[in-house]
C-alpha cells in the first residue's frame, strides 16, 4: 500500500507545480502575445468585437508608423542614444567597478550606497533643473544631451554590476599575470577583461535596453530629436488603438531579443553565483 501511495503524492505535487508554473507563464506572456497579435491584426478584425483572435493580418500599420509618423527617424535616434549610453557607461563604469571590486579605501561602502541613492530621487524632481542646465549648456534636444542624461541614470547600476562581475574574476589570475611579466594595466586588459567579457557585454546590453526603454527624461529633454518611446508617446498615442499596439510591439521586440541572447549572463551580472 505504502509503495503505491508515495508515487501518487509525488504525481500530485508535480501536477500542482506544473499548474503554478503555467499560471506564472501565462501571466507574463499574455500581454506580450496580445500586443503581438494586435500589432499585426488588420483594423477590420481588430474592431470586430466578437472576434477574439483576428484572422486577417497586415503590415499596413507598420508602414504608417514607420513612414507616416516617421518612427524610423526615432528608431535611429534611439539606437544612437542607447549606443552612446552603452559606450559611455562602459568606459566610465569599468574603472569605477574595478576600483570597487579590487581596492579597499575609505568611504567605499558609502560610495556604493551613494550609487543606489541616486535611484531614490524621483525623476520628476530632477527633470526641470536638468532641462535648465542642459539648455544653458546647449545640449538640450540633442542626441548627446539625452545620452548624457541616460548615462547618469544607468551608470550607478552599471558600476555596481561591473564591480560584482569583476569580483567574480579571481584576483589571483591578475596577480599571476603581474608576476609573469605584465603591468597591472596590461594584466587587466589581457587577463581580467577577457575573463569578464561575457558578463560585461551582457551588462552593456542591459544599459542599452534601459536607455532604449526610458521615456520620461527623453520626452522632457527633446522636441525634435526624440527617441522612439518619446516619439511614440507624442504621435502614436494620439492615433487609432491598433497603431498603439504596433508601436508597443516595435518598442518591446528589440529589448526582448537582447534579453533573450544575454539571459545566461543575467544571473551572474548581479553577482549571484549558482555554483
Amino acid at each position, binding site marked *: 500500500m505504502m509503495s503505491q501511495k508515495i508515487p501518487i503524492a509525488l504525481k500530485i505535487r508535480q501536477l500542482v507545480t506544473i499548474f503554478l508554473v503555467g499560471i506564472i507563464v501565462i501571466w507574463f506572456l499574455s500581454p506580450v502575445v496580445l500586443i503581438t497579435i494586435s500589432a499585426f491584426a488588420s483594423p477590420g478584425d481588430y474592431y470586430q468585437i466578437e472576434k477574439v483572435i483576428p484572422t486577417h493580418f497586415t503590415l499596413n500599420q507598420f508602414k504608417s508608423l514607420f513612414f507616416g509618423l516617421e518612427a524610423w527617424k526615432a528608431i535611429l535616434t534611439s539606437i544612437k542614444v542607447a549606443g552612446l549610453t552603452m559606450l559611455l557607461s562602459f568606459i566610465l563604469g569599468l574603472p569605477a567597478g574595478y576600483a570597487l571590486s579590487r581596492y579597499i579605501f575609505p568611504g567605499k561602502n558609502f560610495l556604493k550606497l551613494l550609487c543606489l541613492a541616486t535611484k531614490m530621487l524621483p525623476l520628476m524632481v530632477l527633470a526641470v533643473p536638468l532641462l535648465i542646465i542642459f539648455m544653458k549648456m546647449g545640449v538640450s534636444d540633442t542626441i548627446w544631451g539625452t545620452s548624457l542624461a541616460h548615462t547618469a541614470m544607468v551608470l550607478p547600476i552599471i558600476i555596481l554590476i561591473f564591480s560584482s562581475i569583476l569580483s567574480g574574476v*579571481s584576483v*589571483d*589570475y591578475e*596577480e*599571476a*599575470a*603581474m*608576476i*609573469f*611579466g*605584465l*603591468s597591472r594595466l596590461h594584466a587587466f586588459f589581457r*587577463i581580467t577583461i*577577457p*575573463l569578464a567579457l561575457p558578463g560585461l557585454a551582457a551588462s552593456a546590453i542591459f544599459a542599452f535596453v534601459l536607455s532604449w526603454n526610458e521615456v520620461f527624461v527623453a520626452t522632457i529633454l527633446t522636441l525634435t530629436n526624440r527617441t522612439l518611446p518619446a516619439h511614440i508617446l507624442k504621435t502614436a498615442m494620439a492615433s487609432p488603438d491598433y497603431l498603439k499596439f504596433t508601436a508597443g510591439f516595435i518598442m518591446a521586440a528589440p529589448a526582448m531579443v537582447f534579453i533573450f541572447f544575454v539571459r545566461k549572463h543575467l544571473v551572474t551580472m548581479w553577482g549571484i553565483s549558482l555554483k
Partner: protein
Amino acid sequence: MVKVRLEGLKKYFDKVKAVNDIDLEIIPGEFVVLLGPSGCGKTTLLRCISGLERVTEGKIFFDNDNITYLSPRDRNISMVFQNYAVWPHMTVKNNIAFPLRIKKYSQQQIQEKVIWVANLLGIDNLLDRYPAQLSGGQRQRVAVARAIVMEPRVLLMDEPLSNLDALLRVRMRAEIKKLQEKLKVTTIYVTHDQVEAMTMGDRIAVLEQGIIQQFGNSDEIYHNPVNIFVAGFIGSPQMNFIEVEIVHKNEIFYLGTKGLEVPVLDILKDKVSKLSDKRNYILGIRPEHIYTADRAQTDKVVTTKGKVYFAELLRSDTVIHLEKEFGLLVIKTPGDLKIEEGKELEVLIDLSRIHLFEKDTRKAIF
C-alpha cells in the same frame, strides 16, 4: 641561483603588524620553507618578496640588487599560487608559453622550452587542453610548469599542495622537491603543514605573529626548539608541557611537580644549576620520547604511572592519554598495542630528550 636577503622587513596593515621586522638570508639554490599557523604572516612575507605587496619598511636583496621597490614583473621571479591561477581562457600550452612570450623569446625557443618543461612534469599530452578539462593535480602541474619555464631567479610557492587530495599531495611533495634539486633554483615555499616543511625544506623558518621564531634545518627545529611555540607547533601529537619547579636533592637536580619527578642528567646539570629562580619552568617532552615498559630504548629513563584515559588506536601507532595529577600525559608508541582504557600503565620518560622552558619568556633553556 641567487641569494635572497631580507633586512628589517616590515609590513603593516593599518595597525596589524603582519610582518614585523624580519631578517633572513637564504643561500643560493636553497629550498626554504616558511612555516606557521594561519595568520602568522607567512603569506604576506612571500607576497612582499614577490612584489605583489609593498613593504612598509626594510629591504629585499636578490644577490646584491636591492629589489624592494621593483614591480613584480621586473624581479624575474615566478610563483605557484594556492589555487593554481592557471588562466582558464588559455590552453595549457599558452599558459606555459605566456611568460616566455612576454619576455619576447623567439617562436622556436618558446616551442623548445614548452616541450622541455611539459616533459619534465609529464603533461606533454595535455598541451592543447583548457584548464577546465584538467584535474586538480594536472592543473597543479601546469602551474608549476609555467613557474619554472622561464628559469626564474627565485621560485615562490604559496601552499601549492593544499588543494590536492592526500595521496596526490604526498606524491607531489616528492616531485617538487626532486624538481627543485634538479633545477637548483632558490625556492621559498609557504605552508602550514609541518610534514611538508620537514620533508621538503633545506631550512625552515617558523613564523608566528609576523616574527621568525626559529630558522634552521628540520633536525634543529625538531630537536632543539628555541621556544615553547616552536616546540609545540612541530611534532604530532603535540609535545607535553608540564609546569615544574627545580628541586635540589642529594647532588641531583629534579624537575618536579605533583606526581612526577624528573632527574636532570649530568650533561644538563650546569644549565640548571645556573638558574637562580626555582619556580616557573615548563618541562617539555615529546609523546614519542615516552616509552611503554617493554620498548625502552635507553636506561636513562624515569618511570611514571597513570590510568589510561583514552587510547587512539591508529594501528600503525598507538597514542595513549594518561591521567596524571598535572593533567593528561600523551604517549606515542609505534605498533598496534592492546591498551585498555581505565587500566594503570607504567611508562618511561627518556631523560636525554627532555626540554626545559622559562615560563615567562617562553624561551628554551635546553
